[in-house]
């Protein structure tokens, strides 16, 4: 029996999992139209590569990954692109984003699917294919998976964790997926194990999912995978928390879990990876829990881009007292701005809310420093202090008290007797700090530009004086007043050289883990940039 570790804090909210976990996963019928957002993942928005009126096939790439941290988007079914437009997407801001609208033709005609031979493929090529198949974390963070499957400078990542904890109340999609498709998850785990060179594969599942545990254990028979049952406690499904539970190690703050030799993937991601590699299928559908104030809470396998309204209608006629829909769980999810918003890769759950199920909290009272929040915080922060600093806009202090280690799990909100929406304060503080940093960057750029402008004016003045001198006194005689200009020029040049040296001394740190071909690309860009810069800074050579 493996020794399990505990993390500080955590809460035990009412689970509400039984409602949706009784029925098997149903396949949602083809919706009347599909709205596919281009920005479903963390990183750069995908670039549309189809045009309005074009016929697309099921699984055809319609949005291309833009950069390394980005991933592709595909047509969920065959049909016609009817619009490429800004439309409502599932985001708490309610701001529209670029989407491709597809009118399905009902034929479900697939593109050619080619399984990938992952054992013989070049690892970098394999990762690029995964990016082009739209693989991103399905647990909610939607980080592009190919980037996480890169062992980087390390030869390998010894521990691979498959996250089946599913600790948020109400959600059962991972539970059902593990019950019904355990073999595919194990197959996906093997591919990941190969890609990371992992020596152990641990599957963490909370003890409130006995059927999933049994199914996963059966599927793991004959492999070296280990299914580990963790006690039910929110947020044990947080990647960092699960890592701590299973290995006793804490992923470094602000760093990656690979630094301690661990990588974590949600089981739904592992499943989509198996579909992608073994069947050549891009991510065009997912399993989603539809629950809450609906007649028949249920899990559906639905196409990405299905409007929320059509999806919830599958769980029965909407009830009159339904107020709205939470995407995700009640701890970390958010209220959808509209039921027109589509299902995206991150949508693991839709909860129809009613005043009865989710009563509005009473008005907030002042913080009484009871520290129930600190006792519940899984990161061992002092939420009451962070609240105070965020509220007083003492952002420096908030950062000093590790605001950016907050995972926004909502445990503090859950226990607060004063009903203070603490996480909202932290989000506000974080976004203010980011905004200020952006302002500072802008100011820095403006200052650089201003300095260069001064330098250019000075240079042009000197050039004019030189020309004038050459005209009036012949080429050999130095102009009067030249030495003064020269010394000024020399001082400017010296300052520029110093700045250059300083800049050269600062190594960019974010490229450390990139594959060699990326580094080569970066080097080429840098060389071109250096050439350009040289041309700009030494104009006398070109004149």
């Amino acid at each position, binding site marked *: 029996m493996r020794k399990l570790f505990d993390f500080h804090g955590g809460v035990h909210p009412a689970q509400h999992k039984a409602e949706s976990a009784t029925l098997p996963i149903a396949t949602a019928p083809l919706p009347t139209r599909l709205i596919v957002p281009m920005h479903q993942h963390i990183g750069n928005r995908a670039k549309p590569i189809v045009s309005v009126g074009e016929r697309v096939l099921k699984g055809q790439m319609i949005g291309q990954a833009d950069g390394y941290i980005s991933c592709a988007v595909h047509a969920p079914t065959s049909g016609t692109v009817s619009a490429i437009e800004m439309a409502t997407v599932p985001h708490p801001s309610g701001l529209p984003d670029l989407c491709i609208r597809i009118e399905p033709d009902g034929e479900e005609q697939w593109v050619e699917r080619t399984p990938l031979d992952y054992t013989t493929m070049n690892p970098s090529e394999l990762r690029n294919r995964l990016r082009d198949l739209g693989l991103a974390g399905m647990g909610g963070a939607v980080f592009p998976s190919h980037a996480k499957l890169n062992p980087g400078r390390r030869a390998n990542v010894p521990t691979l964790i498959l996250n089946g904890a599913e600790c948020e109340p109400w959600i059962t999609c991972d539970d059902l997926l593990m019950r019904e498709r355990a073999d595919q998850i194990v197959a996906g785990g093997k591919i990941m194990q190969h890609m990371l060179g992992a020596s152990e594969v641990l599957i963490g599942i909370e003890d409130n999912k006995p059927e999933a545990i049994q199914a996963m254990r059966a599927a793991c028979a004959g492999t070296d995978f280990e299914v580990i049952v963790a006690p039910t406690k929110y947020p044990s499904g947080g990647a960092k928390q699960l890592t701590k539970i299973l290995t006793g190690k804490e992923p470094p703050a602000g760093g990656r879990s690979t630094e301690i030799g661990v990588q974590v993937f949600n089981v739904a991601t592992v499943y989509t990876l198996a579909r992608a590699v073994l069947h050549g299928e891009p991510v065009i559908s997912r399993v989603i829990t539809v629950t809450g104030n609906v007649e028949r809470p249920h899990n559906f396998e639905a196409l990405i881009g299905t409007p929320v309204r059509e999806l919830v209608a599958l769980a029965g006629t909407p009830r009159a007292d339904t107020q709205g829909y939470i995407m995700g769980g009640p701890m970390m999810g958010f209220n959808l701005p509209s039921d027109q918003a589509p299902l995206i890769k991150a949508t693991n759950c839709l909860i129809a809310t009613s005043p009865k199920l989710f009563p509005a909290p009473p008005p907030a*009272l002042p913080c*009484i420093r009871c520290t129930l929040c600190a006792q519940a915080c899984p990161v061992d922060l002092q939420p009451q202090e962070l609240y105070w600093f965020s509220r007083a806009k003492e952002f420096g202090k908030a950062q000093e008290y590790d605001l950016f280690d907050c995972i926004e799990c909502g445990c503090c909100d859950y226990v607060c007797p004063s009903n203070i929406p603490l996480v909202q304060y932290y989000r506000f503080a974080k976004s203010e700090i980011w905004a200020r940093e952006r302002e500072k960057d802008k100011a820095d750029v403006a200052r650089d530009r201003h300095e260069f402008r001064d330098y250019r004016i000075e240079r042009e003045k000197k050039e004019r004086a030189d020309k004038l001198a050459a005209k009036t006194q012949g080429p050999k005689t130095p102009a009067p007043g030249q030495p003064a200009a020269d010394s000024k020029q020399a001082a400017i040049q010296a300052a520029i050289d110093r700045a250059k040296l300083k800049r050269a001394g600062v190594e960019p740190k974010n490229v450390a883990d990139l594959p060699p071909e990326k580094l080569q690309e970066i080097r080429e860009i840098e060389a071109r940039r250096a050439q350009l810069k040289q041309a700009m800074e030494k104009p006398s050579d070109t004149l």
Partner: protein
Amino acid sequence: MAYVSNSASVSSVMLKVLFALLPATAIYQLYFGPAILVSIVLASVTAIGAEAAMLRLRKLPIKPFLLDGSALVTAWLLALSMPPLAPWWLIVIATLFAIVVAKHLYGGLGNNLFNPAMVGYAVMLISFPAHMTQWPVVDTLAHAHLSLSGTLRFIFGGELPAGMKLDALTLATPLDTLRTQLLLGRPASEITPMPVFGYVGGKGAELIALAYLAGGVYLLQQRIITWHIPVAFLATLALLAFGFHAYDAARYAAPWFHLATGGALLGAFFIATDPVTGATTPKGKLIFGAAIGALIYLIRTWGGYPDGVAFAVLILNMCVPLIDAYTQPRVFGHVKDQDKP
């Protein structure tokens, strides 16, 4: 933002604190007469009135703040800390000072630096020392008994029934007796058999202390308070008392005496644990509690006042920001030398 919440609210927290005080109040009334009930009612009415007036002056919503119950807790704790058989204005002024000055002038619920009940108590102790040392004698030792109507007449009119003297109703507290007798040069072993003393502490009072302990255990079980402050508080007090008692038993009272008398248990479980004015980090709570325990021993043994809970708590209230700042726990993932494979 979480859409769900456990059912805790400020009022439920405060109600549980009041509930935890019930057994001690009952025993108090049983052994020392109905004066304590009068005192609690007086303090509560004054506190609610003052709270409502201050909320109105500060243009804050009255209903949610009145219902939070924090004023009632302050009133109740104050009544239990003050001598009950005293003129009505003593507890009224103390309560007014606690609610108006110590609480609302410092910003109201959640913002006050000092424990309001202890501010009220300390102000009265300094201003009216004579009244503040008039403690009722335990029933079993009393030469006269006051009925409820007699108690009311005394508290509001200062009249005692004909032929009854105040001396017959009040007596120095065990802590006071010990202090004065020690000063007279008598050894502790001769003092503690005196009638005012019970098995380990004051007669009757030690049972109240036991009831406070029971209330405290209930609060711990309900997770209203954490163990850190009471344990550090009582352990430090007991340890110091034990050390000195072992050194010279004739001059220094036994540790169980210190734990069972005065405000030790009330202070440890109900007063030092006030969340608003106490330390918040686990380590900070230990330091906070331990320092209070130590200060109480110092004040009781060498200071000018018979008990030191109020002053010890107020002094440590001042140190809370400093304690908290230096005792921040290690945040998840902030590890210096974790094994890197």
